Structures are given as structure tokens and as C-alpha cells.
């Protein structure tokens, strides 16, 4: 089902849409005269509309909106994590995607390229990552849900634009399927963009919301959550995935609630001479005003830290050894924790789902009884610093890691748990 609507008051009755319609169902209204004194265009047979959007593309005043209903996948499907992100974004109402191919996230762009034209959305492969993130800035300013995605080196390029989005208080979703670094690094999975993501990533004082999925199902769910949080707190939100979660195939169900996006009175949709201009801007000529804006923004960050911490706590109540791991590392660590429990070791897992805000509360609680923390990461040790901060260094924290695109085996994590268990005895 498709629906065509006209902003009737702005129509000048040129009739170009009537010529463009392949179904011949548009006409100039005979009864109505609009504010401008024209007979505006209308659809004579709404049921016959096929949603081709030829009229909207032709309209010189951009007053026609064509909406196509997107069928929701009723049963479970088998998807790559990257595909699940793309489909979830579409379900969340994202109709604009701008990106540039880079392994291991290219399936997101490929999926969007196939799906967007069919549902009346826009897929655009930009000339670079920098161009893509600035297109995101534009669409976000206009009040629409928008997404871009890349992998580590490409996210560095987007850093400038992400800072601008944060400085303008604009919502947007950015996906990073991390690969090995630094530099060009490699195409295999990594988690070494933790610092970049959780500290903001670009220049200036700011944060972005960072969500870390560890399954294909969560890739979908957290993408939708990212859109919701970005709109709620008016800031960019990042889905921090990695090569493994992006590439792995798992069954995924799209059977979940999706909230309507909130109203965006700040959007630059044209004043129509009815209101003052809305301006999307991150430049402030007055230093005092810039300081004030920064203070207000950081007060908002405190609210987010209070309200939005998310973590999965697994067997932590009585745990002596608490493993901290997110994303794919957490999948591996959970298997190791189960194996340690089978050997009689009181091991548990805290899996941060929000990396910013970091789930301090879960760690503080566990630190009351834990004798040792082990941070499992695909990096030289980045999240470990937040674990130390959250636990106020009251309990020793060790690192268990692989880098270069390698992932630790459950056996390696199990050995680290066993070694720690022996030492704390």
C-alpha cells in the first residue's frame, strides 16, 4: 500500500505531477482553491497509487510526499549481523543511508542499496566517508532519522562530522564494525576503537551514546535503541560492533515494538513565514555562550549516566572472579565462565551493553565481593581502564586479550579464570 500526500497550500497548480504519474490518477482539484489562489493537485484514486514517487521527484516545489508501507518480516530469518542492522534501521523509520564501502561492514551498504529504492528511501554511496557523515548532518538537521556505517579507518574519517553532530545536538546513528588497527590494520575483527567511541572520537568536549551488541538479534535491537536514544537525548549514537558480529549469521526475529519518533520542532524544515528560522549550527561567536552550551550539554550527560546504563550480569551474585567483556568477547567469555563454574570456580560475567554511559553501577556492586576482575578484549586493554575507574581500583583487574584480528579462544579465557582463582585462594 502506498500513500501520496500534498502540502496543498504550497501547490502552484503547475500540473507537472499529473504528467509524471504513470497511473494517470492525479488531477487538479476542481472544487478547492488554495491560499495562493490555485487549484492544487490531488489524487483522484488513492487505492491505485503504486508508490513510484515519480510525482514527488517531478514536483518543482517538493510539496509531494509518497509513503510506502514496509512489510515487517513475520517469521525468523537467517541474517548476517550487518544485514540485521540495516533491516532494523529501516524498521526504525530510517529512510536515508549514506556510506562508503569498507570491509567488514559493506553488507550494510549493499543491503541498503537493494532495499532503499524499493521502499522510497535514499541510499547514496558518497565519494568518501567525510562526505557521507556530512550528508547525515544535513538529513538529521531536517529532522529525519538517518544512518551511516563504516569500519575503523572510515570512522576516523567521520570523526570530524561526528563532532559537528554532537556540537549541534543532532541525533544520528553511526555503525562501526571494528577491524584491526592502527592505520589500515587489517580486515579481521577487533575492539580497539573502544577509546575512540567512548571518549567521543572527534575534537572537542562531547560524548556519544555507544551500544555494544553481542549477537545478531542484538544488532537489530540495539540499532533501534540507538535511534530512540539519539532522538531522546539529541546526540549521535553509535552501534559499536566488530568484524565477527557483523559477519556471523544467526536467526533473528523482528517481532518487537517500535516507538514513533518524537516531534522535532527544532528541525530545519522551512519556516513557511510562520515561525523564526531554525538554525543547525555548532559555531558560537560568543565564548560565554559556548561555555554555557557545553555546561548544559554535560548536565544532560549526567542524566544519561543515571538513566541509561545497561549491562547483562551473569552469575555475578556470588562471583569471586568477575569477567568483564562486551560484544563478541562476551560470547566467548560466557562459554568460559560456564566451563569455570562446571569446575567449581565461582566465576561471573558483566557484559556492558552501553559502553557510554559505562555501567558503573553493576561493577561497583560486583566489586563488593569479587576478588579479581578480568577484562577480556580484542585490544591491548582499553575497557580495562573503565573497569578500574568504576571499581575505584579496589579490586585488581587483569587483562586477557588478542589483537591483530585474532579472537581469544574460550580455552584461553578459561585458563585466565583458573589462574586468577588459584591466586585469590
Amino acid at each position, binding site marked *: 500500500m502506498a500513500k501520496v500526500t500534498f502540502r496543498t497550500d504550497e501547490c502552484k497548480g503547475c500540473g507537472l505531477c499529473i504528467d509524471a504519474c504513470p497511473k494517470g490518477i492525479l488531477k487538479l482539484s476542481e472544487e478547492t482553491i488554495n491560499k495562493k489562489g490555485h487549484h492544487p493537485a490531488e489524487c483522484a484514486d488513492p487505492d491505485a497509487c503504486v508508490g513510484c514517487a515519480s510525482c514527488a521527484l517531478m514536483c518543482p516545489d517538493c510539496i509531494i510526499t509518497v509513503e510506502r508501507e514496509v512489510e515487517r*518480516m513475520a517469521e525468523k530469518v537467517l541474517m548476517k549481523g550487518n544485514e540485521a542492522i540495516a533491516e532494523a534501521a529501516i524498521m526504525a523509520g530510517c529512510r536515508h543511508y549514506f556510506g562508503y564501502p569498507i570491509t567488514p561492514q559493506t553488507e550494510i551498504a*549493499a543491503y541498503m542499496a537493494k532495499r532503499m529504492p524499493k521502499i522510497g528511501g535514499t541510499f547514496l554511496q558518497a565519494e568518501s566517508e567525510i562526505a557521507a557523515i556530512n550528508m547525515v548532518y544535513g538529513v538529521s538537521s531536517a529532522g529525519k532519522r538517518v544512518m551511516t556505517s563504516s569500519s575503523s579507518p572510515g570512522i576516523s574519517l567521520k570523526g570530524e562530522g561526528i563532532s559537528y553532530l554532537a556540537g549541534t545536538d543532532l541525533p544520528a546513528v553511526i555503525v562501526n564494525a571494528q577491524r584491526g588497527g592502527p592505520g589500515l590494520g587489517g580486515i579481521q575483527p577487533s575492539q580497539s576503537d573502544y577509546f575512540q567511541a567512548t571518549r567521543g572520537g572527534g575534537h572537542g568536549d562531547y560524548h556519544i551514546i555507544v551500544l555494544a551488541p553481542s549477537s545478531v538479534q542484538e544488532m537489530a535491537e540495539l540499532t533501534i535503541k540507538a535511534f530512540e536514544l539519539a532522538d531522546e537525548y539529541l546526540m549521535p549514537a553509535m552501534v559499536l560492533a566488530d568484524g565477527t558480529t557483523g559477519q556471523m549469521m544467526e536467526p533473528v526475529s523482528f517481532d518487537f515494538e517500535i516507538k514513533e519518533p518524537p516531534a522535532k520542532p527544532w528541525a530545519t524544515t522551512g519556516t513557511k513565514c510562520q515561525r523564526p528560522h531554525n538554525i543547525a549550527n555548532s559555531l558560537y561567536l560568543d565564548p560565554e555562550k559556548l561555555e554555557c552550551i557545553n555546561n548544559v550539554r554535560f548536565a544532560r550527560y549526567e542524566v544519561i549516566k543515571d538513566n541509561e546504563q545497561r549491562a547483562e550480569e551473569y552469575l555475578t551474585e556470588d562471583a569471586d572472579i568477575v569477567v568483564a567483556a562486551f560484544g563478541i568477547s562476551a560470547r566467548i567469555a560466557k562459554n568460559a565462565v560456564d566451563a569455570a563454574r562446571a569446575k567449581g570456580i565461582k566465576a561471573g560475567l558483566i557484559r556492558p551493553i552501553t559502553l557510554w554511559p559505562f555501567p558503573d553501577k553493576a561493577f561497583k556492586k560486583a566489586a563488593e565481593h569479587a576478588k579479581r576482575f578480568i577484562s577480556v578484549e580484542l585490544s591491548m586493554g582499553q575497557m580495562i581502564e573503565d573497569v578500574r575507574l568504576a571499581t575505584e581500583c579496589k579490586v585488581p583487574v587483569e587483562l586477557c586479550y588478542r589483537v591483530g584480528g585474532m579472537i581469544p579462544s574460550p580455552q584461553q579465557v578459561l585458563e585466565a579464570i583458573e589462574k586468577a582463582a588459584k591466586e585469590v585462594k
Partner: protein
Amino acid sequence: MRYKRVTLIAGHYGSGKTNIAVNMALDLAKQKDNVAIADLDIINPYYRTLDSRAELEAAGVRLIVSPFANSNLDIPALPQEMYAVVDDLSLNCIIDVGGDDTGAVALGRLAPKLREEDDYDMYLIVNRFRPLTRTAKEVAEVRYEIEAACGLKFTGVINDSNLGADTTAETVLSSVQFGKDCAEATGLPLVATTVESSLMEELAGKVPDLFPMKLQKRPIDL
């Protein structure tokens, strides 16, 4: 399963081609000598036939893979040995083609000789649980895109409908009609329905032409 000299495995991205190709190569090695598997996947640098190297070599299967497969070099490289497939007529070969029409382009170089020799099967792999090929109509579109890209015609359909780790006998049974629909929509015979070995007993007799498969162990599992 009966094999011609060359069996080409093609289909939609993520439909399960590599897994089927590896399992077919192992199956073929039980029937014939001088078996090779050629990896012509120029689409996906992750999850290659090379992941099953130990198993294939133990079965005496020769691997024809790009020296850059599973490395960090992210380029659509083809193995220089791939011409053995059409030049060495004593070779019994399974070819793992990359996904969609873009992946099938790599076959173009081999297509004239394969057509001339006319001793090949090309199978269209379908999985009704994949998001962009859930209907026979969508499958038929992919079929023409691939044929146009590689210059070879499909000779059969293989129903590989599965939900990964969540696959049960029910999953397979619920896809039987889809397999038939795809065969009808494409005018191709339904050659086989794949099933994970452990479900073989439960489904034997209920689904015709079952092809048992062993799935790869995931590195994240203990």
C-alpha cells in the same frame, strides 16, 4: 549425489554456498579420485573454503584458493591455478562461486570452455530464511541475474533452507514447499534438500533427495 566432472555452486549472498561446496567435495572424494575444490569467491573475504582446509586435505581434496584468502589483503583475487578446472579434464571439481551476480562474474573467464566441454552442473542454492530471497519470485530474479553475469545456465536447484543453530526438522519440513515453488518458478529440477547430519534420521523418508551436511564449528564455542 551424482556428479558431473564440474559442479558449480552459485546463488544469493549468504545462501550457504561455501558450506555446500565443502560438503560436496568431501562427498565427491568418497566416489572419485582426483577431486578438487576451487574457491572463486571474490565477494566475501570472511568464511572461506580455506576454513575447512584440514578436513579437505585429510580427505585428499586439492584446494584451489587465492593465496590472499583469509589474509588481511582485502582484494577480489582469484587463484592462478583456477585454469586447471578447465584445462585438466581428469580433475573432478566443485567450484564455490561468490554470492549474487557480482560474484558470478568471476566465472566468465571459465564459461566458454565449460560450455564447450558440456560436462557440468550448476546449482542454484536457495534458503527461504534469507531476507532478500524469501519468495520463489525473488529467487527467479536472482537466477537470471547470475546467469546473465556468468554466461552459464543453471541445471538444478538445491534447497538449503536453514536457520543456522536454530534449525530443526520442522524448519526443513516447512521449507519443502518453497523448494518445489523455486523449482517451478525457475523451470529447473529440485536436485537436493540439505540437512544437518544429526537431523538425517528424523527426516529420512519424509523429504526426498536429502543431502547430509556437516556444519563448521564456530571459534567462539568451547
